[in-house]
């Protein structure tokens, strides 16, 4: 809950986002926003033989949400659709280097993952599993 969450990797991706933009004719494509803070994020994925061959994100928002999206795109390149659907938030958070992001900002960090899951499940024609509450 302090500037400690602004690790080098986050700041690096915030200042120089990778894979920013959009893809036409993407097989997987989804977007969402967080009305509370106005974060907006879209992800487009091109598949070849069920494997991610290209991926772009676009959006606006805080350093955490945008850098997390940028980092995520790098992590996903070359993965199979099955791997996308099984990708966990712990994998992403570990890469971000800020496991203790705190409840106020964790939603920012996970927005990109949420969009990925929406798109992947939609592509698979499956229903998005709802988070267990409590």
């Amino acid at each position: 809950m302090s500037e400690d969450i602004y690790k080098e990797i986050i700041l690096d991706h915030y200042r120089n986002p990778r894979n920013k933009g959009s893809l036409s004719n993407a097989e997987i494509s989804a977007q969402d926003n967080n009305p509370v803070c106005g974060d907006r994020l879209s992800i487009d994925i091109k598949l070849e033989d069920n494997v991610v061959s290209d991926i772009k994100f676009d959006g606006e928002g805080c350093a955490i949400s945008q850098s997390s999206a940028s980092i995520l795109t790098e992590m996903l390149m070359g993965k199979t659709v099955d791997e996308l659907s099984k990708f966990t938030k712990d994998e992403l958070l570990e890469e971000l280097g800020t496991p203790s992001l705190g409840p106020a900002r964790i939603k920012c960090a996970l927005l990109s993952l949420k969009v990925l899951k929406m798109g992947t499940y939609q592509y698979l024609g499956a229903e998005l599993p709802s988070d267990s509450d409590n």
Partner: protein
Amino acid sequence: MSSDIFQDIKNDFPIFSNQINGKDFVYLDSAATTQKPNDVIDSVVHYYKNCNSNIHRGIYSISIEATELYEDARSNIGKFINAKSSHEIVFTRNATEAVNLVANTWASQNLKEGDSIILTEMEHHSNLVPWQILAKKLNLKLNFIEIQPDGELILDKLDNLFQENAKFLSLTHVSNVLGTINPIKDIISKAHEHGITTLVDAAQSVPHMPVDVQDLDSDFFVFSGHKMLGPSGIGVLHAKKTLLENMEPFLYGGDMISNVSLREAQWNDVPWKFEAGTPNIAGAIGLGKAVDYLNQIGMDVIHKHEQELYNYAIDRFSELKDFKIFGLENKHSTGGVISFSYSDFHPHDIATILDGESIAVRAGHHCAQPLMEKLGVPATTRASFYVYNDTSDIDKLFNGLQKVRSVLT
């Protein structure tokens, strides 16, 4: 500063004796909720330790004492806003409930299909969504007083809005985002000329400036205790007594009745008719004490203090590159609120980095999404002041903002 009263005032507020993240705590989110002085906390504790009991129906000593404390708080609060009678003061949970009370009672009884409700574009969700819902239910129209880029209401089209079908006007006294003080006395008077009944959302005015409901001539008037040094969970509806008397009750149950049989019930007198069930007794008592504390300083002194802080802040922040204050050109500001953007830094990042410096500011839409849209931003960062703030808080915010830039660039 203007007054020595503010010299050692932080000592009255126990939260400032803690260090947060290892640093002195700088609280700049009083528009969301205010810190509590010892007087208020002690009054709550005193109730629990000395006369904790249910009120109104008890015959024994502590219940009589608690009832007196509760009703004295009501009188005290009535005098604070210059109500004609303490019986015009209804305790609610917060300003939000008070607005909903009016929407569900007076407005539901008196507004008819085709009538219109006038609001403004700068309303807090709590004074917007209840009217959206009522409008849908009763087929009413909603019309909005627009705002200028500087945050002031555009009032020269009022005559159009106040046409035949306009029956109710609900507007905020002070914007919780921009600090704009709306000229509600004039607006209310014009509304009354058109036979329009009025509600004032005073959640951001009563805490910060002298307010006189008889002078304003508002019909309904709402505010929250927690934004004026008072406890959690207590708010106020003020209404003219004849209105209250002619309204159906809001919630039903114990204490709001005079007589009940299996199939019928008669109501208690006002204001109790609107207070169903065991109320927030400690909350009301604490709010009474908050009013005492504010009176000791003086509301005009508080208003002046905040304006001095505001001017100091504007001056200091003018040194910051790409720093923009929303509604800065507005000449009618409480001085309690500064909403800003800073370079292209996202408000959440600003708030998080400031938190690392032990500075609490708010980032987001401040429950005023339509206003954000009007300002063309998804969110702002907001610093808001109160009695316990001083120029050193602003200096620390200034340093914090420089840190923000150094982290994010």
